[in-house]
């Protein structure tokens, strides 16, 4: 058990009261939904990759999106972040319809995403990577860019903010190194720190722990929890059940493009539809997370 995680029950307990009275069923209404999905459908040829009738994602908590391979998680994720367009249906972000909004506009509205295959910008230094994340930069206009006095003061503010974040993510020593020289885990940290430079309301993490060594996993988990403690909503796709159990306040399970179950991680494992989705329909024992049945993709 290299991935053994400490009992995350205490951290979760502080937020679980939000979900008191929320029915543990697909599409249940949440007290304060930051992302609301209605009749979202996306097909590739004859294959319906995503077909979600209704889903609400609660503000200020960590929501995990899980499901067996081919469940449509990544496609759903791309639809939520508008990197892909749905055939039909709507996504409301903070009460505003964002379906069809270009991804860069969504980032400026406060939704930022990371990628399954980390996108550290190799030939930019760590600090340049970070500064790129800041929104509404005066020097990003071609004309003003020519005249440094017009953007230098803002650049200094951005740099200070970037340095503070690098410190927090233990990357300060890499400040002036090319991001391409970083290890896989450091790149994940950089991507998360860079996402925070956009000042987001929602952070969408696509398999944040994929390819990260166990020692760094704990540190990354701590950072994800600290996002929630700052009031940022977190949605993440993950395969590792230890991770899901450790940090998620709420779990959404997808299978064959649909949301088949919702609830806290403690009850998801014994949900018959989830067991059927992961193990096939002719199985009758409860799913045991500790045996890591669902992990190890």
């Amino acid at each position: 058990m290299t991935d053994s995680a400490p009992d995350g029950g205490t951290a979760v307990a502080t937020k679980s009261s939000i979900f008191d009275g929320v029915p543990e069923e697909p599409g249940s209404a949440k007290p304060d939904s930051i992302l609301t999905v209605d009749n979202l459908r996306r097909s590739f040829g004859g294959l319906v990759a995503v077909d979600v009738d209704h889903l609400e994602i609660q503000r200020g908590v960590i929501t995990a999106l899980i499901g067996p391979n081919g469940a449509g998680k990544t496609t759903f994720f791309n639809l939520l972040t508008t990197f892909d367009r749905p055939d039909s249906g709507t996504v409301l972000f903070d009460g505003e319809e964002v379906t069809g909004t270009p991804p860069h506009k969504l980032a400026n509205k406060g939704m930022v995403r990371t990628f399954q295959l980390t996108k550290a910008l190799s030939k930019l230094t760590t600090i340049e990577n970070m500064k790129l994340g800041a929104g509404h930069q005066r020097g990003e206009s071609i004309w003003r860019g020519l005249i440094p006095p017009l953007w230098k003061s803002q650049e200094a503010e951005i740099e200070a903010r970037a340095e503070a974040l690098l410190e927090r993510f233990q990357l300060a020593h890499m400040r002036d190194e090319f991001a391409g020289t970083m290890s896989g885990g450091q790149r994940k940290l950089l991507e998360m720190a860079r996402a925070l430079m956009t000042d987001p309301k929602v952070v969408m993490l696509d398999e944040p722990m994929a390819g990260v060594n166990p020692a760094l996993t704990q540190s990354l988990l701590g950072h994800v929890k600290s996002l929630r403690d700052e009031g940022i909503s977190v949605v993440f796709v993950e395969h590792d059940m230890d991770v899901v159990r450790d940090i998620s306040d709420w779990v959404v399970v997808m299978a064959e493009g649909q949301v088949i179950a919702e609830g806290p991680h403690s009850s998801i494992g014994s949900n018959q539809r989830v067991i059927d989705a992961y193990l096939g329909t002719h199985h009758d024992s409860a799913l045991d997370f500790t045996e890591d049945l669902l992990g190890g993709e």
Partner: protein
Amino acid sequence: MMFALDMGRVMQETMTQAFGPQAVVFAMAAIGLNIHFGYTGLLNFGHIGFLAAGAYGTAIAITSWSINPLLSIGVGIIFALILALMLGVPTLRLRADYLAIVTIAAAEILRLLARSTALRGVTRGAEGLNEWAGGFQNANPFTGIFEFGPFRYLPMQMAIVVFGWLAVIIVSILVWLLMRSPWGRVLKAIREDEDAARALGKNAYWFKMQALMLGGAVAGFAGFIQAVDKATVQPDTFVPPITFFFWTALILGGAARVFSPVVGAILFWFIIVFSESFLSELVADGTIPDSILASTEVSNVRFLIMGILLMTLMVFRPQGIFGDREEMALDDR
């Protein structure tokens, strides 16, 4: 027998051309290509089209619309900007390779249009536009032939050498300023990973469009310089191989460095003219017998030499003269 060679003449020809009007044109064109490819990662294989737009824009403004020569330069640049827009709108939303395909085709379409009979009234077909450069020649402050050290220029060439290199330096400084601004940072981010830039709130499409237009405008200016140097605009000077000579100059210097296109352009002409001049001498005085290399074949061999040198460079110094090998190697991880 080697001592019979007139090395003085070889060096004069070489140095004169390495810093001459054609090197100015190449430096300016390569700066534009550096903005496209070096900083933004746009694969532009039709760069000569922007020069054609700039050259024809200038000449047409004078011949057809009788515009003041100084303002005609602006028309040339506007032609290049329009070309950039026309290329960018359909292709910049697509993968990088589409721009490469469209640019190479567009440059040829432009050349064939210019030499077509349909546009004869404006472009004068294959014969090209002549007798429009008088305004520039009259404004030339230089008279007589200029000789200093190994350099030797005619008055008009001298004007292009002086004002052209000055313009190259000014444009280089502007590029340097831009590339260290947040604007330049976004371009480099797009070059590395467009989706990452979009996820961080950058309108990748618009930034790529701006880069395409800026590089196109610089290349349009290069086209104007070439037109004034030759005092004529002919469609068949804008053939596809020239685009790849610009690429050669850029890669010699090393992409994504401010002065690499300038040094690359000088080096390109140094190598081309030196090989031709030196080989001609050797053939002429019989050191190389006619059976091995005839004097008429020398001009082809110079490109062969350039190719070998470029390959050698790619093996031993793939980052170019100015590039950083470690930075280059980051791709391989």
